[in-house]
């Protein structure tokens, strides 16, 4: 018994020590971040916000760090609202949001730069016979006015509406485009794009919406008003289900050198290819 106790004490002490080491490591990292070299830019670039932007920001961050090995790039996927709040509170350098800033948000000294456009794909189960919907159909489906696939030329079956949770950028984007804010009759409100895709893939009568970048072949993407969500169609505006990805900065305040360099890189022509690699359409042209 005594030996056991001693052993446990040892383990606990070890755990405590490791934890403490972890802490000090972190602090020293931050200290390094504040120094700015002359030739090579060092420091940290902290981004925070939209979970939908994970792919595009991941690609950009990786490429940026590969070119600037002394810079630490971080991305905190918290959601558009939290990202806007974080940049306001100066908890990050650049905020990320998958919608335009509201007027009251611009009013508190934030400014937006459009990085890319994201098409919102309308997805159904691959077994579903319906392959095209009009914007009005989609709105009527989500309002509960059309409740059976038969009314749309599919096989009989009650339409199961899958959506995102209140506050999600994708939901906000979807509801503002289809003009169905607050009146959608969801059967399920899921908290991530992956969950939406998994659920639609497993239920033959389900319909859902998700960021085009994260679509896989387990679900079928329907065309909207006959237009498929392709890069060209999103850019020329003929595909109607789309929303902007924006970078948010504090107005009239200079970014830290590392953050400024990242900002310039992300909005430059050389980033266009990287952005399209992430499945979204860059706002800049080559």
């Amino acid at each position: 018994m005594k030996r056991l106790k001693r052993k446990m004490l040892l383990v606990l002490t070890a755990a405590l020590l490791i934890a403490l080491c972890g802490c000090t490591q972190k602090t020293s990292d931050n200290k390094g971040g504040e120094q700015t070299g002359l030739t090579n830019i060092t420091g940290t670039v902290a981004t925070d916000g939209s979970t939908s932007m994970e792919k595009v920001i991941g690609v950009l961050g990786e490429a940026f760090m590969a070119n600037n090995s002394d810079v630490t790039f971080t991305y905190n996927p918290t959601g558009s609202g939290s990202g806007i709040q974080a940049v306001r509170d100066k908890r990050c350098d650049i905020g990320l949001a998958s919608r335009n800033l509201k007027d009251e948000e611009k009013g508190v000294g934030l400014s937006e730069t459009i990085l890319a456009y994201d098409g919102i794909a309308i997805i159904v189960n691959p077994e579903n016979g319906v392959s095209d919907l009009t914007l009005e159909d989609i709105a009527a489906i989500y309002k509960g006015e059309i409740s059976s696939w038969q009314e749309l030329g599919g096989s009989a079956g009650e339409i199961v509406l899958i959506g995102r949770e209140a506050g999600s950028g994708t939901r906000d984007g979807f509801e503002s485009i289809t003009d169905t804010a607050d009146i959608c009759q969801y059967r399920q409100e899921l908290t991530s794009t992956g969950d939406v895709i998994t659920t639609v893939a497993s239920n033959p009568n389900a319909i859902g919406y998700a960021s085009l970048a994260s679509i896989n072949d387990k679900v079928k993407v329907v065309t909207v008003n006959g237009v498929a969500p392709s890069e060209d169609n999103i850019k020329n505006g003929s595909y109607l289900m789309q929303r902007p990805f924006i970078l948010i900065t504090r107005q009239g305040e200079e970014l830290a050198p590392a953050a400024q360099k990242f900002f310039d890189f992300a909005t430059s022509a050389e980033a266009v290819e990287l952005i399209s690699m992430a499945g979204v359409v860059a706002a800049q042209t080559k």
Partner: protein
Amino acid sequence: MKNRRQLFENIVHGVFLALGLITVGCVLLITVYLVASGIPAIREIGLFEFLGGQTWASTAAQPAYGILPFIMTSIYGTAGAVLLGVPIGFFTAIYLAKLAPPTVKSSVSAAVSLLAGIPSVVYGLVGMLVLVPGIRIWFKVPDGASLLAAILVLAVMILPSIIKVSITALEAVPKEYEDASLALGATAVETYFRISVPTARSGIAAAVALGVGRAIGETMAVMMVSGNVANMPSLFQSVRFLTTAVSSEMAYASEGSLQRQALFSIALVLFLFIMLINAMLNLLLKQKAERS
């Protein structure tokens, strides 16, 4: 020499006291923080409207903050899970503590421990991929994400705590009691149900209370199988629990908004529920201590 030893003793006592106070401090901090951040929204919305309102539309143009659907769902879900989980857990515990041969006991106990160690997101994932489509097909409903799915997942999740605590209680029954019963001519099963279980009663009740606590506090697993729409509870409808109401909207609720404050108020209500269950648990354990 003696003085130095005394000093050393005092120092060690002081260190232990400080470490002990960390826990107390955390509890106090959380309580104070929750009450302080939970009260304003209740005040603004109105206690009756908050607890009794049937519509939750936190981001609507005309927001409504009624959490009755969440409260009822949490109560129904927990009750359902306990109704299913307690009999299974209780009989498993009797079997393992009294009847099972040693090899079976050790392997089943290992499986129960393993069940306790599975992270809740894994329960949720399996529920989402197997249980939800299963319910849709078996019961011929449009969608399987429902209160029923959540109850089934929760029932499995509370099994380990019920089984383990019940076994401990049953094994603590003095052997003399059982021997006396057997000597008087009672069969083994009669002895276990008439002597062992009543003697271990408060321990088993504590196991049930622990299960209730686990079920009402579970978030991740139920979030993945229950559909998360703020409906009044019904077995095959999509529902949202108190826990998931907080977690699903917290990431997006902006600072200082009534929505965020209301989420803290929901957390406060949940906290009070769990405090109530803990108080019950303590009462049961105290009774047990007095008995022995």
